[in-house]
């Protein structure tokens, strides 16, 4: 579903990513972790087609995501450092707008709001800045995209919302959704592969054993 090869990004003479290769199959999930400013968010933004690589290729669902930005975006949803402006809208109105734009039923918007623990009829401007991240995550969930890119999207969630979202993401993976999560530390039970980035390079890749995954998923469901 996603194939990245030789991905390099240089920003102001600083190499943010240096020749990253990665492949993720349909229904696969990867946790990208590592310290700040080591290429984690840059990789996510490149995958989200928000910035252009210096060199290398990104193929998503058979589409060249560098050349064919707009078609590739139909497959993607990114929850990260994007701002959501209130525009005097309510949470449900905003999420229904995203779902509608992506040809999803409006019920998807309600599910997304409930998952992240946002009141459906709350005005967006009444939501505290730190909780706006929840709305970004809810929008990504409501989009019904085939690839979810979650860049520190769990930061604003409380424990119960985090568990609900993780449970939903695990179910989405089983339906074939690709999930890429970038966090300081890998989220247990959510991804089947962990990738650690250091100085723009993949330092190590580890595969979570099915046993670990099953235990972690059980733990999530129990919680």
């Amino acid at each position, binding site marked *: 579903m996603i194939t990245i090869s030789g991905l390099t990004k240089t*920003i*102001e003479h600083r190499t*943010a990513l240096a020749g990253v290769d990665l492949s993720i199959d349909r229904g696969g999930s990867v946790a990208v972790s590592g310290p700040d400013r080591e290429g984690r*968010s*840059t990789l996510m*933004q490149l995958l*989200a*087609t*928000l*910035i*252009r690589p210096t060199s290398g290729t990104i193929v998503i669902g058979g589409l060249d995501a560098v050349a064919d*930005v*707009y078609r590739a*975006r*139909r497959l*993607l*949803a*990114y929850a*990260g*450092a*994007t*701002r959501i*402006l209130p*525009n*005097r*809208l309510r949470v449900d*109105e905003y999420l*229904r*707008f*995203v*779902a*509608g*734009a*992506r040809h999803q039923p409006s019920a998807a918007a309600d599910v997304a709001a409930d998952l992240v623990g946002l009141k459906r009829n709350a005005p967006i401007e009444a939501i505290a800045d730190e909780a706006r991240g929840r709305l970004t995550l809810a*929008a*990504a969930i409501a*989009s019904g*995209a085939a690839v979810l890119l979650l860049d520190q999207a769990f930061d604003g969630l409380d424990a119960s919302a985090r568990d609900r979202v993780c449970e939903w993401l695990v179910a989405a993976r089983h339906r074939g959704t690709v999930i890429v999560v970038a966090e300081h530390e890998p989220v247990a039970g959510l991804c089947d592969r962990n990738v650690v980035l250091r100085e723009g390079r993949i330092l190590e890749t580890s595969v979570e054993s099915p046993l670990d995954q099953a235990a972690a998923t059980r733990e999530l469901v129990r919680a």
Partner: protein
Amino acid sequence: MRAVVLREALVAARRPALVGAAIVSAGLLALFPIVWGVRGIPTLGGISLYDQQFRLEWILALVLLPWTAARVIANERGDDFVGLSALTAIQPSRLLLARLLAATIALVAVIAGALPVVISAQQMSVVAASRLVADQLALERWWAVALAAAGAGLAVVSMVPWPHFVERHYSRAAGTLHAAARASTRSPAGEQPVRTPSSVGWP
């Protein structure tokens, strides 16, 4: 596309500027016959109250409608607009078209809000209803053409792949500024890091 148009129209409808512009427009037009009476301003002899009021309507439209159009559209600009495009998977040009359509509807609403007052003046001046309709349509058509021209320009510009375009030019400008700052001064202030797209929250 329908979802975007609905959203833009909802945003426009909730802006106080829309109601404010409609009230100011209708209010000033209503004040005109109250202040000057059914014959209008005496120095403008030879033309009816309706004609005088229609000129006032044009002046109000020239002042109020651009302000209204600028105030009722949604807030996303630049990076936020790119973010919206990525989130909805809709090209920026289509988002702009939807915004333009919503702005047009809002402007028509402002003009239509003053219609009862204009109709009263038409009745007082005994002007044919067909002329009233033609005048109002001309007014609205003029603004529709102006908006369409502005929108077409914006839509063409938006077809440039914005993230890449802005990033490339922003980086180049930041680099030039940085080099100039270093050349002009050796003080620590000259060594301050240049704001990169990522450091300013560029998505």
